[in-house]
């Protein structure tokens, strides 16, 4: 995956570049808004990591310009401004995801991987399957090894999100944002409890677990061969 990091703080930019390389991606760095826009225009990037406040051209203006030019490269906006209104503004400008500084690298990585592999709306499957688990988005039916599994509406949406990102790490915050539409941090790890409930429904009576906990990061659903 080719990532363009548009960030004016050199240390942060190099930390991201190094970490992304260690995670097996290539990363270029642009130090200001104009340079970032020029590099993004040349294309070839799978995802842009864009700081909200940049010298020479504001982060929001970079996204707006790119979107106006028809570029559909997913953009993750990084910002020190974490209030509700700021996030709304960032997403309205054309950003695909919004992450508040300071952040954990694992969180950032999970989010850009999810963004880069996000299918275009028209390509979205109506049916997901991982191993012998399958989920039908139209009839809202879930089966494992042919046996129907009864899920609560929210559990269904949780599983749907996990399966949509099968093979990718999904963080607790991502789940809270996408399944519950909450952008705050509950004090207790409520997500863990929901996951363990879901796990007891889809994994409990089967030999091979599909829903895995990724230590220090989040969860992943995958056909547990590896």
């Amino acid at each position, binding site marked *: 995956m080719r990532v363009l990091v548009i960030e004016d703080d050199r240390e942060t930019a190099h930390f991201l570049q190094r970490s992304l390389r260690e995670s097996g991606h290539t990363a270029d760095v642009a130090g200001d808004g104009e340079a970032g826009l020029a590099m993004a225009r040349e294309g070839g990037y799978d995802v842009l990591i864009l700081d909200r406040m940049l010298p020479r051209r504001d982060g929001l203006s970079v996204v707006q310009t790119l979107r106006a030019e028809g570029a559909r490269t997913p953009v993750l906006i990084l910002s020190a401004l974490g209030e*509700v209104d700021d996030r709304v503004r960032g997403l309205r400008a054309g950003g695909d995801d919004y992450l508040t500084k*300071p952040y954990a690298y694992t969180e950032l990585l999970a989010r850009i991987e999810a963004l880069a592999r996000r299918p275009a709306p028209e390509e979205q499957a109506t049916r997901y399957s991982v191993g012998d688990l399958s989920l039908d988005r139209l009839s809202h039916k879930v089966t494992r090894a042919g046996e129907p599994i009864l899920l609560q509406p929210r559990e269904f949406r949780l599983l749907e999100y996990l399966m949509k990102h099968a093979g990718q790490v999904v963080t607790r915050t991502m789940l809270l944002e996408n399944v519950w539409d909450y*952008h705050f941090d509950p*004090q207790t790890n*409520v997500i863990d409890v929901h996951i363990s409930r879901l796990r007891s429904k889809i994994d409990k009576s089967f030999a091979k677990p599909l829903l895995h906990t990724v230590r220090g990061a989040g969860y992943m659903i995958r056909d547990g061969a590896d």
Partner: protein
Amino acid sequence: MTALIRLLSSTPFRLTLAYMGAFVAAAALIVGFIAWRANDLLTNKVVETLEAEITGLREQFQAGGAERLAAVVAQRSSQPGSSLYMLIDATGRKVAGNLDRVPAEIDGTAQGSIFSYARPGPDGTRVSRLAVGVPVAVPGGLILIVGRDIEDLHRFAGSMGQLGLWSIALLSVLGIVAGLAVSRSVLRRIETITDASRTIMAGDLSKRIPLNGSGDELDRLSENLNGMLARIEELIGALREVSDNIAHDLKTPLTRLRNRAEAALARPEGAACYRDGLVKTIEEADELIKTFNSLLLIARLEAGAVAESMGPVDPAAIVADVAELYEPVAEEAGMTLETSVAKGLRLVVNRELVSQAVANLVDNAIKYSADERRPRPTDGVARPTIALSMTRVGDAIEISVADRGPGVAPEDRERALQRFVRLEKSRSRPGSGLGLSLVAAVARLHGGSIRLEDNAPGLRAVLTLPLRARAQEVTRAKPAMSPFLAGARQRAQ
């Protein structure tokens, strides 16, 4: 002296003066006009009388010649009145008439004029009086002077004029005195406002401008200024509170973080130990970030800075969603979360913030009830319940979270009102310690409130939100922020 100068240069006085000037000018104009018209009228009257007399005398002359004229003049002169006559012949000798001599003002001219003449007064002495006279040439070298005494008229006009001047003078003096009095009283009240604001500017934010209770515009102005001061004081108080909170809530974990890193470095075991130290350092940093975020959010809410993302929301959905989020958590902790909501209501709020507030309340309730170290009830035994409900109360909705935990003893609540007093048993609990503070801030942002009640046993936290989004004004009208902030700290800690 300076007081007088200040008085004279005050706005009300200058306004009074300008008003007075205009008024006096108008009065003078009117009086002058009346005097001019009256004078004109009287003069015309005199002229008309003179002309009539001259015509009459001409007729007499034409009828009977010089003798007849002289006789008539002599006859009319003998009658008392204000008519004056003098008939002189070509040599300048007086033939008839009641004037002693030809007045110098008329002598030798063909035109009439005002002249003065002497006449015996009531006491016998001769007094000089004013008159108007016209010389008329009579054929035969005679000159007839017909005149009219206008002394009385003149006196009358003179006294009228004086009266006018005096009244204008009196008016001006009265006006200036009234102006000074008005300015002084207004100035004195403005001075009190100025004095009060000076003290306030010097740093005493608790001082207020005194009201005189009359409810007039200056009183209303003072009242509004006082309201503004209350808000400023409150904001500064909040700011101070936030900085105190930052100092307190961030320094402690920062110290811990530093100590941990130092301890890890100091240990000789090497890599594994460093790793452990780093992991713990990151955990500590994450906690710090959480606390910092909460503090910032509370500060921004206190400043009322998120109005943009308010929208109409069904409060039942907010409560139901939070209940759904926490229901498994409650169950895991051996409790039941019971929810009851009123349907069909609409609130204009920030969904995210209200959800977070309700979530914090539920989170606290679970945390505190679960911490009781009681054996987990087995099936069949009633499990402790957390009741989450949303009801409409008048023009507001109440979201209440009632638990069966240890609650907060009333005397502890009192003590908890003091800042930074933490109850012994709450020290060991996890959390940023800002949960209820945030709830209070969210409530205030939406014009609502939060209160803690005894649930006998347990604690009942009630979040009130007004149905109408009058939000800001309502919160701003209320001073004093946070008995609950301290309570919150103690509860959520």
